């Protein structure tokens, strides 16, 4: 019985760790295989709008307030509020639009699979399907 409980605890512990990690994923056709924190901020802030092959960069956000979202924006911009302020400034200056929001991590994966030039983020444990993982953000 003790062994079963220990196994359960270890499984939950590692599942929790895996769940806490954020995977930055992209459509298979993007011309990069890894991405840096500075590049992510450039893409999400709209400072850089095209890939090196001149195709547009399509970024996706998640609408609900999920841990994965908090951790992603904390990593690239210190916090979600600051990211929202950057998007609002771009929009009110006519310099860009906020990213399209999806309602769940499952929808994020579907969108990334089917949208050419797209990039987004999900929990590492949720990564599946025909997408490219560019970065794993460890807490």
């Amino acid at each position: 019985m003790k062994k079963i409980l220990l196994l359960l605890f270890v499984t939950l512990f590692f599942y929790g760790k895996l769940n806490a990690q954020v995977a930055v994923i992209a459509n298979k056709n993007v011309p990069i295989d890894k991405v840096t924190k500075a590049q992510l901020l450039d893409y999400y802030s709209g400072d850089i709008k095209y890939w090196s092959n001149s195709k547009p960069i399509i970024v996706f956000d998640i609408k609900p307030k999920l841990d994965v979202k908090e951790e992603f924006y904390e990593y690239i911009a210190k916090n979600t509020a600051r990211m929202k302020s950057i998007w609002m400034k771009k929009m009110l200056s006519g310099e860009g639009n906020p990213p399209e929001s999806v309602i769940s991590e499952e929808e994020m994966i579907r969108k990334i699979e089917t949208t050419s030039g797209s990039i987004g983020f999900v929990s590492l444990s949720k990564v599946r399907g025909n997408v490219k993982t560019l970065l794993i953000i460890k807490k």
Partner: protein
Amino acid sequence: MKKRLIIIFLIILNVNTPAQFEESAFKAFGYFQVSFMQQFFRDQLDKKTFSVQQLNLFLQRDLSENWSAFVDFELLNNYSSGKSWGDISLNEVWVKYYLSKRFNLKIGLQVPPFNHLNEISNKTPLLPYIIRPLAYETSFNEFLNLEDFIPRRAFFQMYGFLPIEDTKFDYAFYLGNSPNISTKATRAGQSGIDTTNIFLVGGRVGLRYEDVKVGFSATYDEIVDLKNIDAHFQVISGLKNIPRVRIGTDILMDFKKVNFSAEYIKVLYNAKNLIDMDKQFFYVTLGYRITDELYSYFCLHSTQENYDIELADYAGYSTKVSITIPNFGLVYDINDRIKLKGQFARVDVDVKNSPTDSFLSYYYSAAISVFF
């Protein structure tokens, strides 16, 4: 040679009109700020007022992958043409060409980059203030000549940034009209156009590194006839083509929950030692994010304007006006689109040689800022 030119031309055309561009949606959005203000002034009864301080309406459309158009209408102070209240203006009307992060071109009426706050000065959802730092408080336009401090209009701009590792070097260069614009009141022909062959020439260089942003801005233009710009100097005749230089510097820093921003502007006129009408402005803000929704700040801003006529016969005309406003406030984000703001400000107006015009007053204000 002709063939080469045709090939180059076709390549350029191909860059401009990608075949895969899908027609984007026409977007209409805006924001407004409604405020309540109570003013305590000398021994008089206090004044209270509600006001639609500002309403901005935007239209935006991406015309192709590289071209986009933008329109911004601004209505101030409970605007009503029938009651002669407030003001309405065409704030921005431009088309932009995006070649790359290094080069953008903007043609049409636009707010030029001059210090950090000028770009967002009229965008109330981005600001914690109800009364903004003075040089940027557009609802004070009726009694403070804000355009002396900052350029509010340009018509042609090249801008972009050059990344070097994690540092970005921003640049902008722009052209616009000089301040010698004909109005319906002056009856100098078609209103709203520059009556001279002088340009406003300006630019900004800056750098961004992680959470620090610094910049240096400057403009040059000339005032042809001072009498049309400032009534105080009507007594001086024969003073023509006065060069005006604006110099500005700004800094912005974020440290986790604390942020700091500051600016300085100096306006210099070369009036051949006949008059001194130089001006300066600064603001310093220290902010602290208490929670995700609640933000607090302390701000100090000040303007100083010289009105000196350096001729013995006009000694009585000389004066100096200083306005200093320490203030603090709180902002609560109800959600992404609605903010509640509160602010307390102490306004100290000091007019040299005129104690009756100098005064001290206190403002309590509250506002709701809505983005829609």
